[in-house]
Structures are given as structure tokens and as C-alpha cells.
């Protein structure tokens, strides 16, 4: 399929606008609300999508086996303590998302600091 690297550029034209089905929906986040309330509507509507991402990530971690699976156990176990070290209002926002989605708070925290974990 396709080329081997290094890749040759294929400069396409006339791709804009794409079909409207690919346009991303907009939500308002009210910063006047307390942190725990701000994401309620977004988290409620996208609950399953967030769960799917984390379930897939969990599977990926478990595939490493051994100690990797223990790490996930620790994330769930220590979740409430981990979120406590984050700055505000992020602590409360993450707690609010966890409440609405029913996802363990440690897992929502991990999702939010994923960049730092992943850059290694």
C-alpha cells in the first residue's frame, strides 16, 4: 500500500469544504459556574466516547502484562490522592467529569495528564 519512506508530497486541491457531516459540534463552557459544574453537559453527552477511549487505553496497558497492569490498579486505587495534587480549577473540573461519567477519578486524571506520560 502506497510508498515507502521518505514520502513524496501529494498536494491536493479543492478539498474544502468537506461534507458537513465532518464538521465538529460546538458546546459552551460557562466559566462562571463552579469547576464541578462546567463540564456536565459535555461529559454527559460524550460519556460513552470517553469510556471507549479509556477502555482501549486500559487494554493497551494490560497488553504489556505484569507490572503494567498493576500500574492501572494503582491509578484506580490512588486516584483521589492524585487529583488532589493538581491545581484548581482543574481538580474540581476533573471531579465533575468523573461524577457525570461514572469513570474512576484516577482514570479521568490520567487522561488529563496523558501528554506528560506519553512524551517519554
Amino acid at each position, binding site marked *: 500500500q502506497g510508498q515507502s519512506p521518505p514520502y513524496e508530497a501529494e498536494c491536493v486541491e479543492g*478539498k474544502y469544504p468537506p461534507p458537513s457531516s465532518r464538521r465538529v459540534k*460546538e*458546546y459552551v*463552557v460557562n466559566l462562571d459556574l463552579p469547576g464541578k459544574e462546567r*463540564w456536565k453537559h459535555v461529559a454527559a453527552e460524550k460519556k460513552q466516547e470517553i469510556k471507549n477511549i479509556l477502555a482501549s487505553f486500559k487494554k493497551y496497558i494490560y497488553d504489556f502484562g505484569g507490572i503494567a497492569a498493576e500500574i492501572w490498579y494503582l491509578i484506580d486505587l490512588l486516584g483521589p490522592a492524585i487529583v488532589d495534587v*493538581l491545581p484548581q480549577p482543574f481538580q474540581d473540573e476533573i471531579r465533575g467529569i468523573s461524577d457525570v461519567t461514572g469513570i474512576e477519578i484516577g482514570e479521568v486524571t490520567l487522561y488529563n495528564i496523558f501528554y506528560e*506520560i506519553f*512524551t517519554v
Partner: protein
Amino acid sequence: CTSIVAQDSNGTLYHARNLDFGLFMGWDPKNRTWEITELLRPAIVNLDFQRGGKTVFKSVNYAGYVGILTAISPGKFTLTMNERFTLDGGYIGIINLILTGKGTWMGFLTRATMEKAESFKEARAMLTSTQMIAPAYFILAGNTSGQACVITRNREVNGTDTWWMKEAGGWYVLETNYDHWSKPLFVDDRRTPANKCMKKLTQKGVGIPGIFDVLSSRPVLNKLTTYTALMQVNQGHLETWLQYCPDPCFPW
């Protein structure tokens, strides 16, 4: 990821990006897709952060993520963030945070920047002077011609590099996931194709449709691309499109 800030012949700035994510996280050989990438797409949302009923900034997020990777402060500045891989990465930063209490999480720094900075200058100051937990590239653009740069960040403030649009070629600046002074890894060179397409586009072609075409060109568009976001700061304009890369398409 690929971020581009380009200025048209009138000096109007456009800022756009592809967000690529999910490398090595579950390849589906049947559909030739990355598992996490496919799951991230339905979670993409545009957000309008408001205070007192007025927009403070707009962003593109994966639902459940409260930090910022792509955002616009209407009339003031635009910001995108690209991942920077170094050995002195996130784990060391996390250990340092535990031991010394020093370091800011990337997504929270960008969020604070979007909420607090009143100008390009203030945003640049926040993004260059805050100790971080992991390295990153910040692509920042203001509201006047030439006001665009790529900030290459280490965890520490020392060694921060700012690469201005005028040094990068005059009318655009482009960043993927490599330091601008180094060659990209030959198996992951999206920079050369993107530059080729920008040069083919020319400054006359700069605008939302032209930049979207560049970001829709393989391998700038690849199997990891989840969305393309397009911003014009003076109009406060942000639009986001889900991206797919049908075969034949590069896996990254």
C-alpha cells in the same frame, strides 16, 4: 501533528493544524486504522469558553480533557501545541515535580494562557517563562502581520527557542514534531511535504481553503490524523473538521 501559521498578501494571519494521535496504540490490520485514533474522533468537540455570557476563548478538545491543544482568543491570539519527544521527557518531569514541587502540566499551562493572557505578548511570556513537566512545541500567532512564532520548550525555561515567521521564510511558519534546526526522522518527514505544498500554494493562495488543502495532503494527512482546525484571529473564527485518510495512506 502539523501546525501552520500563514499570512496572505494583505498580511492577514491564518493558523491551522492537524492533530495526529495514537501511534502504536493498537493497529487494526483489517481496517488499516489505529484503534485509539478511531475512538478519539467521535470525542472531538469545539468549545466556547464564556464568562459573563461573553466568549473568552474557543478551543478544540477531546471530550473529558480540560487542557488546551488548539485555541483562539478572538481578536488577540491563536495557539496550537505539538508534541515534542525528548529523552528528558514527562517521567523525569513528574519525578521532579514530586521531589521539588516545580513544574506545570502542559494542558493546564495552555488553558491558563488562554484564560489570562490579554495579548500575543502576554501569551508568549507565559509560554516561555513557566517551568514545565514535559517538553513541547507551542505555535503562537497574534493579530498583526508577522506576529507568529514556534516556541520550542524544554522542561526548564533555559534553552527555550523562539523561531519567528520572518526567519522561517517570511510568509509562513510550519512545525511538525521536530526541532526546526534539526532534520526530521526520515520515516516521519511530514515537514518536507508540507513545505512543498505551502510553496505550491504560494502566499496568494493563503486562506482557509488553501491551508485546508495543504493539511489534507498525504502524508501531512495520515492514519493518525483526527481533525483539522482552521483559525482566523481577527474574525474570531474557528472551524474544525474530522479527518480520515483512506488507503493508500501512510500509517503516520
